[in-house]
């Protein structure tokens, strides 16, 4: 360093690892922030105070008292339970069929792979609402279901009407439809795994089945999980379609109530709030599942919301103390800090 350096540059020199500088002013950010706050205030206002004026009386339009009254009503909770059951069962069938049909689709046997193609073609190509109604009327085509040798003797007989209740029809319809979509998701996942992985597993002497189970599928999960989470959330709401075949799920339950009380909007709000709550829980689950399957691919796992909060608090505290920022992404203080 020479002494001819201008004195003004002294302040910009790093001192002890930190940099003292005047930050850039972000006017645009402030304006955008103000607009968001304004819109949020309008939303809160309309939700709370929107009202009709009739016969000299103000009646709130959203009727929050009605929403509160029915929110945990027994029929609503029973409907919620059935919605969750439908979602879980249909997704379980969907994932199982999805893996099976994805593996079939990638088979070298042309009959097997075209059978899978046909299944996907049919169930993706027809509206799920039609499929739901169709399964409900399955007894029209097959009044008697039998278990036995094809074209040979039968051992067991069932009446389709007693076996395929509306709930069962709903589960079958949603599950089979989901299977077609999941098959494409799983197939994309399997194809995303590098060919070298299969070769390395084969070179170790692992069979096709072992390679799929131990090497390919665990890695495909990283690609499969996000769209599957999406599908689950979508399924939660698609399950409301089975209300047309009188399955008493969440939507059908609130429909029954407002058919009696005419409080259509508040009851639909009850259903929507429940759908939102379950969706939120599913999203949290998805986040942790994705984090689990990122193991080994990311050098460091993304922080959990709790770890992120800890980091924010730690950064804030250190700012207050005007100390050098040395905190890792998990919110733990770095070396040289108390």
């Amino acid at each position: 360093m020479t002494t001819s350096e201008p004195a003004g540059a002294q302040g910009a020199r790093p001192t002890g690892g930190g940099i003292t500088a005047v930050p850039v002013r972000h006017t645009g950010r402030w304006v955008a922030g103000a607009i968001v706050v304004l819109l949020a205030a309008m939303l809160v206002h309309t939700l709370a105070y929107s009202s009709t004026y009739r016969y000299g009386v103000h009646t709130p339009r959203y009727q929050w008292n009605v929403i509160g009254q029915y929110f945990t009503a027994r029929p609503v909770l029973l409907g919620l339970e059935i919605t969750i059951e439908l979602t879980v069962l249909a997704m379980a069938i969907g994932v199982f069929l999805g893996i099976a049909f994805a593996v079939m689709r990638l088979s070298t046997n042309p009959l097997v792979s075209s059978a899978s193609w046909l299944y996907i073609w049919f169930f993706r190509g027809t509206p799920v609402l039609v499929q739901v109604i169709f399964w409900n009327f399955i007894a029209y085509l097959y009044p008697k279901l039998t278990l036995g040798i094809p074209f040979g003797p039968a051992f067991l007989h069932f009446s389709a009407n007693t076996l395929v209740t509306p709930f069962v029809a709903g589960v079958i319809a949603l599950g089979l439809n989901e299977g077609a979509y999941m098959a494409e998701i799983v197939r994309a996942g399997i194809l995303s795994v590098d060919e070298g992985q299969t070769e390395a597993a084969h070179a170790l002497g692992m069979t096709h089945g072992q390679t799929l189970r131990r090497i390919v599928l665990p890695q495909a999960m990283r690609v499969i999980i996000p769209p599957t989470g999406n599908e689950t959330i979508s399924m939660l709401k698609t399950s409301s379609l089975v209300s047309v075949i009188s399955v008493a799920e969440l939507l059908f339950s609130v429909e029954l109530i407002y058919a009696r009380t005419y409080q259509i909007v508040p009851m639909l709000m009850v259903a929507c709030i429940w759908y939102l709550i379950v969706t939120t829980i599913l999203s949290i689950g998805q986040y942790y599942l994705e984090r689990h399957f990122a193991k080994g691919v990311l050098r460091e796992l993304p922080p959990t919301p709790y770890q992120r909060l800890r980091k924010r608090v730690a950064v804030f505290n250190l700012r207050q103390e005007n100390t050098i920022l040395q905190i890792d992404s998990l919110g733990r203080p770095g070396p040289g800090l108390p």
Partner: protein
Amino acid sequence: MTASDTLAVQAEGVRKSYGRFEALRGIDLEVARGQVTCLIGPSGSGKSTFLRCINHLEKVTAGRLSVEGELVGYRQHGGKLYELRDKEVCAKRAKIGMVFQRFNLFPHMTALENVALGPIRVKHESKSAAEERARKLLDRVGLADKLAGYPSQLSGGQQQRIAIARALAMEPSLMLFDEPTSALDPELVGDVLDVMRSLAEDGMTMIVVTHEMGFAREVADSLIFMDEGVVVESGQPREMLANPKNERTRSFLAKVL
């Protein structure tokens, strides 16, 4: 004892074609037990294809290829060839170790899990016994401190040494190396070659596809030059590298040495 009893690998007129393209056009070669053979040649000459035929990752189209006196991928019975089942092919592959150019470690498993996987799943060893041996092998390749590391956290040289340990964990009688140092930064090549050198000193039968002429000269017992799917020249490495007899060998070596 016949000559073929001492041979680890024997190839007679081995051919391999992809559609109309012929990658191997009649390979004849023999690799004796306990010997190190280096395969060299320009890219696209069929070196890697031949290596992959040895453990049946590629199906041979014509000719006879046998490992330890047994045909690869087939069983001969009464003058007829029978294709082997998946399980039988797997059992044979389990005795042949393979190391790939791009390592191909399993990224969702730690170094220790990568090495212990084969013994646990293929040889059905107990987890503790397999991990105990995996620890020893990782120590042998100089990575005793990286047991819990995932491949993405390790350098290329470290990954390749884990890949070698993974292959050794199956206690193979033959090791195949497919350009094991080609994807490595120059300063990491030495560590991998050192491990391979020590393997050779222990008497492991090795077939190495490589561009490392120094390694071939010092370690190999025989050197094979391939071009356009045929063996052009083979011999003692020192002699062949110093004065190649064939014109094509000479022009190739002039470019790489």
